[in-house]
């Protein structure tokens, strides 16, 4: 088997998922800098990230589950460490911070998001963990995906219904039987 990483997906989708992944950190910085002229730099993308997450949830609920038979499934929880730097940034700024300080924080935050978007590591979203989901990298028919699952994947031995979002993200779903 020739192992390959998950498909990268379009830049737009990665950007949206990146905003969703960093929405809590962006929200915290917006809260800390509330009243500053540059607050919008954090508030707008944080709101956009929350909107993306909400819309993603709607897409999953309304999506068409397909049966995937998974081969290897690897936990991606260690990737969450990459977010720690972003969560330290709110500590560095507050309402009395200078414009330069806030601009630096915005630049660092932008870089962190950009790196995650470029490397495609935008599916590891701390909010998902708060909602009881975990993120995995899994292969089905030798194709790699990021997998968001709630149940214990170690017990998955048969095909599992998942809703695909974008080029490389699968979200565990409940099996639905068609009503005639």
């Amino acid at each position: 088997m020739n192992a390959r990483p998950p498909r990268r997906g379009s830049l737009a989708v990665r950007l949206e998922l990146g905003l969703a992944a960093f929405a809590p950190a962006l929200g915290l910085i917006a809260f800390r800098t509330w009243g500053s002229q540059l607050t919008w730099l954090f508030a707008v993308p944080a709101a956009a990230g929350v909107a993306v997450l909400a819309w993603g949830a709607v897409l999953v609920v309304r999506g068409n589950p397909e049966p995937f038979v998974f081969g290897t499934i690897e936990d991606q929880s260690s990737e969450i460490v990459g977010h720690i730097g972003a969560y330290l940034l709110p500590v560095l700024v507050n309402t009395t911070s200078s414009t330069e300080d806030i601009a630096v924080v915005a630049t660092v935050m932008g870089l962190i998001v950009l790196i995650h978007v470029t490397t495609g590591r935008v599916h590891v979203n701390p909010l998902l963990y708060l909602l009881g989901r975990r993120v995995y990298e899994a292969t089905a028919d030798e194709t790699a995906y990021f997998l968001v699952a709630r149940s214990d994947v170690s017990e998955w031995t048969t095909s599992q219904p998942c809703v695909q979002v974008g080029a490389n993200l699968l979200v565990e779903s409940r099996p639905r039987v068609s009503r005639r």
Partner: protein
Amino acid sequence: MAASTDLTAVIETIEARVAEPVSLGVARIESDGRVIVSKLLLSDDAADAFREHCRAALQAIESGTPRSYSSGAELANDEFFVVDDAETLAELAIFGDLRSSIETMPVIKPADLDHTIQLYAIAAGNDHRVLFVCRTNPQLSYRAGRFLAIGRERLARVGDPAFSFSPGFDFVMGEGWVVVLDQRAFEMLFREIGVVEQNISQWIEAITQHLPMDESDVDQLRKVALHDSRTWRRLREIEHRGHLVDVTLDQVRTYASLVGLDPDTVVAGDRLTFDPAQRFTFLHLLNEDLYKGQLTDELFEAHRKTLAGG
């Protein structure tokens, strides 16, 4: 190629699978016969709409009359072929792969669908899936002026492609069987995926190994067969039957005379001769499809052969 598939079991399988998850794939066929498949993501509503299309195909099978896919067979209204011979299924292996792995194909955005798409397919079921294939491009070209009715009373410009997924499917494929609902589309696909091109030489050799032909006649036969499904289907059957092993040119001449044909149009000297305009006579003779009615002396073509007393 008599079908031995239990049709009741086929219908039950389709019915059960259609209620299960479905996936939609679209494909373009390269000039070398490779089928490049992409997957279209569906909403739950769209999946239900496709299930209804699949049920319409199921209904056509339930109410239709099954026929075996023999070389001369032509589908009439409300008829369908049941193909279950290992050789044909092997030739359709590319669709078998699609049946089992459509969900892991690369995703294509609706906006990226273009005129190069040649077919779409629905795979239904959790496992042992059933594949519904339609040889058509689901994208409608923009209408003149690019306006469509929106709401009830006004026209508005349409910026996205409009799609048309017709309820009809050309064939349905399951584990060890294929139900062909549209013969023409099925045979065009058969040719487009390269089955004819890959096998034509072998099919012709099944004749020329025992009954020699000039190279120019072989070329003409090949040319005709590549574009005419009735020709390649008969060549394929001749090869499958393998009955020419002990046949001589004299026997062919005698058979031609017996059915009232001029033997010189089929055999010239020590070789078979092929005239594209007389291709069916040529193939009917070699496939033993011609016979004279013993009561009327009329010449008939047999479109299907079954061993008597079998």
